[in-house]
């Protein structure tokens, strides 16, 4: 049942691999840290940086709850190791809004009631922010397709779609102004 039964995992634990020094810019702040090579970006955020807004839903890339923006691109943080990203810039749900006001997507998710339990929500919002930057979804069907990596077990999909559709023009306007 457990997945960590490989010989490699056993060998690495007994030989005690060195931790690796890396730097990450997390939500605009430069962080220096020392991590073991097996630490995922998700575990780094949740267990070491106390950024629990990024959620662990499946831990194997199926649900999208752990989506963050890595150098502006969305990524499943459970499927990538922290040591692979030395020097990268990371934006999580906690860093999406630049000040006390909500990011347009956060505001749209509240306005359209685009969640129930809220556990998939940070991943949905980060994913939608990544989608906006990709500038490739214009129709509802395209938004659905490009958001299909983010599951919502409560089934808030119609409202998630409405929220993203509502916020996309604002986000593109912001980019155009930059």
């Amino acid at each position, binding site marked *: *049942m*457990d*997945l*960590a*039964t490989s010989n490699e*995992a*056993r060998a690495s*634990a*007994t030989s005690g691999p060195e931790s690796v020094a890396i730097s990450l810019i997390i939500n605009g702040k430069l962080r220096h840290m020392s991590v*073991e090579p*097996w*630490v995922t970006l998700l*575990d780094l955020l*949740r*267990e070491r940086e*106390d*950024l*629990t*807004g*990024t*959620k*662990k*839903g*499946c*831990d*194997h890339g*199926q*649900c999208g*709850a752990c989506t963050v923006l890595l150098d502006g691109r969305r990524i499943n943080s459970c499927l990538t190791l922290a040591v692979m990203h030395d020097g990268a810039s990371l934006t*999580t*749900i*906690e860093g*999406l*809004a630049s000040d006390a006001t*909500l990011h347009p997507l*956060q*505001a749209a*998710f*509240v*306005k359209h*009631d685009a*969640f*129930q*339990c*809220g*556990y*998939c*929500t*940070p991943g949905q*919002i980060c994913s939608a922010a990544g989608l906006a930057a990709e500038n490739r979804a214009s129709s509802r069907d395209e938004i659905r397709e490009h958001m299909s990596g983010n*599951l*919502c*077990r*409560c089934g808030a999909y119609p409202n998630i779609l409405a929220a993203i559709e509502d916020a996309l023009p604002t986000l593109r306007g912001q980019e155009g102004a930059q």
Partner: protein
Amino acid sequence: MNSANSPLGKPLDRVDGPLKVTGKACYAAEADVPGLLYGAVVSSSIARGRITRIDAVAAEALSGVRLVLTHQNRPPVASYDEPYEDDDAADGSPFRPLYNDRVLYSGQPLALVVAETQALARHAASLVRVEYEVEAHQTDLQAAREQAHEAPAELPEPRGDFDSAFAAAAKRVDCEYGTPVEHHNPMEPHASIVQYQPGGELLIHDKTQGVQNCQRYLEQVFDMKGKIRVLAPFVGGAFGSGLRPQYQLPLAVMAALKLKASVRVELTRQQMFTFGYRPRTFQQLKLAADGEGRLRAIEHKAIGQTSRFEDFTEHEVEWSGMLYACDNVRLGYRLAPLDVYTPLDMRAPGATIGVYALECAMDELAHEVGIDPLELRLRNYTDINGNEGKRYSSKELRACYQQGAERFGWSRRPAQPRSLRDGHQLIGMGMATGVWEAMQMPASARACLDADGRLLVTSATADIGTGTYTAMTQIAADAMGLSMAEVEFRLGDSSLPQAPLEGGSATVSSVGSAVQRACAGLRQKLLDAVQQSPASPFTGANLETVEFVDGQLRLKTGEHAVPLRDIVQVSGALEAEASVKPDEKRDAWATGTHSAVFVEVRV
């Protein structure tokens, strides 16, 4: 109250929305606890047998591994069934994690490895070797159908004479349906953090639909009355999976007690398949009607799977005796025990699969009689629950059918199967009736207006995404004539006033009624407080002659008004608590919620 400014019935944003969209809502595994240790569960790889040996030497040899907990070294636990029976327990002998060497199902927790990091715990768990004495198992309901026994369910007695009516009817259908096992799989995996307090008390963050259910369970199992408090302010979905305490909770408690330290146990997504689920069933539906489609006979028999240690029952066949008018009804329900875990209530337990089968059979009958499926349902419409012989307190299903049919465009549907095409695609249109209970359970709430005029309302209920925070804030704001911003509702803490499990679509009717009653008590206390002054313009007034609107207590005549804040600034904070049970007036009525579903499918 329901004044023009009341928030009731208004389309409001969720009060917990900003916390959820910013990542600040704190779920069970996320509490910031100093000195936390991490547990990883070792699951059984066989479905039935006995543990002969657990080899934990390799795991224990790793630096940072603090404990390998098994049935051989766990702390003492209760030895009778009763302490393990929680509010949603099935009949029988509840599962006891790490109790002895018996393996009752595949995926059963057999050991907990506790270490200084989650990764180390998980790795060490992979090094634990379990040896078994394997016994033959049966996990296939199809193969065990003949071993099924009568379910311990209170089914309605047969009415009329099914056999004669079925035999004599002009039109008959006899259908069998199968439904698969379904797992709840909320987005948030089940997790518990047990915070070990200096005095040995436990403060627990758990994923649950009932903090007091988990509190009682632990107090009983570990003989720790008064030493356990359970918190669950945010629950990342549950769908029924949080109705019973799940095994990560007692495992975390065992480890915390053993190590006198704080411990977190978070299940993996794979382990989310190792406890309760919607059971697999086989259902046989026999329906008979006259030439015009009026139902003459209904028989609905179901066989569901259960575990060898508990008889899980749900309301599965009852719907067939109440959804349509019919004089000859016979219902049956049997259970087949398998080497699996006990099923567990899941989203409209029983109805989801029982009504599915009934509605499929109704479609078959419509085809047999040669009338429209919606017309068949209208011809058998009833305002009386035939199981109980009582009239529904309200039922708007007819209007629901009509509205649904109009909005969907039901009249476009051709009667002939496979007759509507779009290129190579076949298009089918269908409809079905939905039904669920409308329950109310005993619940309590406390309302406190502090000296600054802010209202705090509390109850030990849950919000699993269902909107409890928002709905209770609305009800309280309405009851006190305050704005939403002046009211805070707190839940998910076992130390708060009693609340039932959040389930069965009964929370607003149950806890909401308690909130209303507590606020009524608080209104009386506010009125009493202003009447303390000898020259009070409210002398002689009562709750009938005053109103609470716009943050004020005022005479209905409009002559005098006083802000609630001014009252509590003099009196100090005022508080009222109330407990509400379902009113006896309900007894004379049947209650239910009905729905109609229309769907277009292309294949």
